[in-house]
């Protein structure tokens, strides 16, 4: 399925094939290979300092997924200072750069999932996820990351990007209204929601869905803010849209409401037409 010019998304066919190979002879070697692959793809939360690996007490956990969401948290929140990286989520899949899992801390600039903690208020944490989490790792990611923070008095906020083409509305949206936010919340979330709720028949998938489902089932108050944008690369207008999502958390999270262009330039990318059919 092609969305924007030249961009092809892999879309699952609904037609499911019968898997006859599954029940054929499974010998010990196959089992071992399967176990090794599972081990290689497992998700682990690792901490910078060896001291505290028990559940960290946390009142607010903000998770950012997608180039614009992570760009927003970096430019508008982390740039204010007062945050320190305390851990990361290590995982490997086919899109990781290295051929096997590396258990060392991620280098800045490399795709990674880094956990930050506010220095003056350690119960506020943020997870900035720029790496690709494969489908079969999503559930484990949510379990492991949410499992390392205490559930009591926890509220989770997820910021996530989405392409506008995925948004279905009966009347066609004109270009003026994008980018915009839509929210989904768990049953136990009682806080204010900064934008309209996501209308049926729209759904969310990916990491934000995995986190929200986990929170719904375990009765953790959580809200996902999904930003629909028609721009595929990190862009300052899209990032600015997320400001509304964190306004409700202004007591806990200090935000730089107008970052300078130097800061923004580090996280945005101007669309360069690298090659097309006409050049």
């Amino acid at each position, binding site marked *: 399925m092609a969305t924007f010019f030249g961009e092809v998304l892999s879309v699952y066919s609904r*037609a499911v094939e019968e898997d006859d190979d599954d029940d054929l002879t499974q010998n010990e070697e196959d089992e071992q290979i399967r176990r090794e692959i599972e081990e290689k793809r497992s998700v682990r939360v690792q901490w910078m300092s060896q001291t505290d690996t028990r559940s960290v007490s946390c009142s607010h956990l903000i998770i950012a997924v997608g180039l614009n969401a992570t760009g927003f948290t970096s430019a508008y929140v982390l740039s204010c200072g007062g945050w320190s990286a305390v851990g990361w989520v290590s995982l490997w899949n086919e899109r990781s750069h290295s051929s096997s899992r590396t258990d060392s801390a991620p280098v800045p600039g490399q795709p990674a999932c880094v956990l930050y903690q506010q220095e003056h208020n350690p119960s506020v944490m943020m997870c900035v996820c720029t790496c690709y989490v494969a489908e079969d790792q999503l559930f484990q990611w949510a379990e492991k990351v949410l499992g390392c923070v205490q559930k009591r008095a926890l509220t989770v906020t997820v910021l996530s990007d989405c392409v506008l083409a995925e948004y279905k509305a009966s009347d066609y949206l004109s270009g003026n209204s994008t980018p915009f936010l839509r929210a989904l919340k768990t049953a136990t979330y009682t806080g204010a929601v900064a934008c309209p709720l996501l209308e049926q028949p729209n759904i969310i998938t990916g990491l*934000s869905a995995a986190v929200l489902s986990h929170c719904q*089932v375990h009765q953790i108050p959580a809200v996902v803010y999904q930003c629909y944008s028609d721009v595929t690369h990190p862009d300052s207008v899209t990032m600015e849209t997320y400001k509304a999502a964190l306004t409700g958390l202004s007591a806990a999270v200090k935000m730089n409401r107008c970052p300078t262009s130097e800061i923004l330039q580090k996280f945005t990318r101007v669309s360069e037409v690298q090659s097309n059919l006409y050049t």
Partner: protein
Amino acid sequence: MFISTGSGDPSFKGFTLIMPAVSVGNVGQLALDLIISTLNMPKVGYLHTDCLIPMAGNNPYATSAEDASQLSTNAEVYSHSDLKLVVLQIRTPIIQTKVRSFRKSLVSWIKSCGLVKTVLLSSSHAYQRDDRQLLGTSLRYLLTPSLQKVEGQRVEELGWREMERISVFPDIPDSEQRLYIPGGGVTKALYTDCCTEDISMAVALIFCSEGDNIADAFMLINHLNDWLRLLEKPTQGSVQWRVPPSWSLLFGSGIPPLIF
């Protein structure tokens, strides 16, 4: 695997479970949407598993603005105590490497519930039908041996057609016959597992192709209703199933006016 929405696990002892197979056209899932929506079945729990692709959205069966904001996940359990009916709705595909583990968890959950019977709604590729299957109805059924004893006669009286077995080697006469449900997802494997584990299971499937499968869903659910009598059939016309709001815009957004 099963996590209740409220405190305490509801009991499904003596209930009938209806569940879909993620199969061609998603017909089983669509049919179940009709049941849940028409019978207004309340949600009683989630199937919290790593075997399905995650997904979340607002209430697909919303009847008003108030209940529209209830969150829905990828696998949920609904129940109707008067009809002694429990429904498992699965909304996303099974992760390829976890199919076997999902089947195992499902079978063990079914066994733990103490159900009277389980019904699996499924579909199969219409283009894979052989000559016999091209004629007559496109609906088929299968019963595990334990359910055959109880419901076999009733199903015969209804005039249902059993899913035909296919020769392993089509051109060789008298070759071994096997069950073949192309496009049925886990249908065949789950059915075989239930035969082995002596679970009472019925499979109701329809031959269809990918496309607008709403009509196929209606056919399948009316067929199932003939047997299970979930809703009374009116003397004139057919049962009025309620289409849920999540079925809107199945083929994309509205048309941009600029193209005209």
